[in-house]
């Protein structure tokens, strides 16, 4: 059976099983599955999917709701956490919450589970006001997630709170089932003047096939600051479609840093909506891949109101036969005067067989705006390489240093030092070097 048909028939069974308390939620699910039924999986005929094919991924016979629970020992997975600082943790194994690995809280803030939030009356107000309000309802993969959404992270920070500890959301998969489809659903609501830092990671612990279709909605209310870090360094059998929607109110700052170093196929759909003045939206990324890996960044910033800014800076380093896509869309509405939108996408192709398709899309309807965009595709600078080698640094290490120097400025805006250190280590690991110091 085709995956689409399998999903459609599973939905009925699923619906009976979840017993949503709210009728609203039922309506949302039903509308979503209809959208998915109509649209199906995106194909290369869709303009937005021209360079990313899901065909190979959709051939597997995925288990949609794994029944078996797998135990995971902390010592075996410690390395996948940022563990040198104190953090809250919301951890899932094969889509199921692991209380053992997690550290949640209800003390002044809610850092807990989507399953509780969707079903317990005390969260109803927030769910009614925010759930599925930022996610694009006409987007087929997001709709597929919405139809089946039952678990994920739920974070609500009431107003005037600076959350001192970062929050880690970690999805492990063991794939006890031969191939696994995971659809986590996260909701993050940050109220006025509050500040939160979140780290998200998807990690497969075996070599079984896993496909994750994740949806995250983030709401940054007035003057809120939200910093989000995505660490994508999964193994060769794991693929990720990440759909993240960020809705911002007046004077809020939201940033998303995406570090893509591993996985078979990664598609990041990242969309910012500016619903107020003096908003700042930042999205940055470092992609370093090789083999036949594929990473596709599809971003949108929707400037709706005046006096806002957006900053995009994506660096890509592609080796072997890896392929990259950057499709960055900036829409500036007529009302959005004095917008300042900056976009840069710089790439290095390490090998002849690697490719990158980069396409900025600017749709500007206002006349008093500052928009700049630039994309470059190049190679490591030969003169620079010779400089390093002439100092006795072997070619491989010299290339690593130059690659690092190329990507480095993306790390400047990372506010958590432990993340910087970790990313530097991952870069060194990815480039296969030990330079005797932490990059």
């Amino acid at each position, binding site marked *: 059976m085709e995956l689409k048909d399998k999903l459609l028939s599973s939905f009925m069974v699923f619906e009976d099983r979840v017993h949503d308390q709210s009728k609203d939620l039922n309506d949302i699910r039903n509308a979503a599955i209809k959208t998915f039924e109509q649209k199906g999986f995106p194909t290369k005929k869709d303009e937005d999917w021209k360079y990313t094919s899901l065909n190979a991924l959709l051939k597997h016979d995925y288990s949609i709701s794994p029944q078996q629970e797998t135990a995971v020992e902390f010592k075996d997975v410690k390395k996948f956490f940022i563990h040198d600082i104190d953090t809250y943790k919301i951890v899932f194994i094969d889509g199921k919450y692991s209380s053992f690995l997690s550290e949640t809280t209800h003390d002044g803030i809610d850092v807990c589970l989507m399953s509780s939030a969707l079903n317990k009356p005390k969260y109803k107000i927030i769910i009614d006001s925010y759930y599925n309000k930022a996610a694009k309802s006409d987007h087929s993969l997001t709709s597929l997630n919405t139809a089946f959404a039952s678990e994920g992270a739920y974070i609500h920070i009431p107003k005037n709170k600076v959350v001192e500890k970062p929050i880690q959301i970690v999805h492990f998969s063991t794939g006890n089932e031969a191939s696994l489809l995971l659809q986590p659903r996260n909701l993050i609501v940050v109220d006025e003047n509050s500040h939160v830092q979140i780290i998200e990671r998807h990690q497969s612990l075996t070599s079984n096939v896993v496909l994750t279709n994740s949806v995250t909605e983030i709401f940054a209310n007035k003057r809120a600051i939200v910093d989000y870090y995505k660490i994508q360094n999964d193994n060769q059998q794991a693929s990720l479609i990440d759909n993240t929607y960020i809705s911002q109110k007046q004077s809020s700052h939201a940033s998303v840093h995406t570090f893509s170093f591993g996985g078979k196929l990664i598609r990041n759909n990242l969309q910012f909506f500016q619903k107020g003045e003096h908003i700042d939206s930042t999205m940055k990324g470092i992609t370093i891949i090789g083999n036949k890996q594929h990473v596709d960044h599809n971003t949108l910033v929707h400037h709706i109101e005046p006096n806002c800014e957006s900053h995009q800076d994506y660096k890509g380093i592609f080796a072997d036969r890896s392929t990259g896509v950057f499709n960055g869309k900036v829409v500036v509405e007529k009302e959005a005067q004095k917008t300042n939108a900056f976009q840069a996408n710089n790439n290095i192709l390490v090998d002849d067989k690697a490719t990158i398709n980069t396409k900025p899309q600017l749709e500007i309807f206002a006349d008093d705006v500052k928009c700049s965009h630039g994309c470059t595709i190049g190679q490591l600078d030969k003169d620079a390489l010779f400089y390093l*080698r*002439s100092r*006795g*640094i072997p070619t491989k290490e010299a290339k690593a240093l130059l690659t*690092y*120097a190329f990507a480095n400025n993306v*790390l400047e805006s990372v506010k958590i030092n432990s993340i910087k250190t970790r990313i530097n280590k991952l870069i060194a690991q990815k480039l296969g070097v030990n330079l*005797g110091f932490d990059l």
Partner: protein
Amino acid sequence: MLHVKNLHASVEDKAILKGINLEVKAGEVHAIMGPNGSGKSTLSSVIAGKEEYEVTDGEIFLNGENIEELSAEERAHEGVFLSFQYPVEIPGVSVTNFVKTAINETRKAKGEDEMPASAMLKKIREKAELLEIDRKFLSRSLNEGFSGGEKKRNEIFQMAMLEPKLAILDETDSGLDIDALRIVANGVNKLRSEDNAVIVITHYQRLLEYIVPDFVHVLHNGKIVKSGTKELALELEEKGYDWIKQEATV
């Protein structure tokens, strides 16, 4: 130490070096002068192992060994050091970390252990003092935002750390004020011994007052057209290169 025999080199089929002969013995200082575009930087790059340049004829011997097959890093491990006319910027990598990497990679290549951290620190402090380099400077990203003079001083700092056998200084004096010039020259002179050699590429007599050469060569159109002692440098300063060019064409 270095023996260059009938060296011809070209880039993209354009001949740049057209039969260079040069012998530099341990303990000696040689100056190479010559008009812009005569091939001075190319000669340095070819000796240091830049692959972009194709050696079409001739040989380079280092301590009696033909180095044709050695990569740039291997030549560095053998003790060749080039102070660049245009040093490269490496954002995110500090001067200290860069120098540590260069030293330890060289030691690794020779089968030696890494230099102990305390010894490394001591050496860095010593050499920074010699070149009057501020401690804060060492934690900055390599060459990023450095002034021309700072870049050159940093090149000589790296040279002092690496203690090469053959140092080639390509226009290290350009961009230096008189104080910096003295400091840099002092750094170079400290390195000089019976066991190593220095090639100084410069346009100006000024540097040669501090680093006194045993021999001066004039490079013109890819060839050494005149060699002499330090007095030749003075003569060039006075008369310019035109008379040499004329002599060469006669």
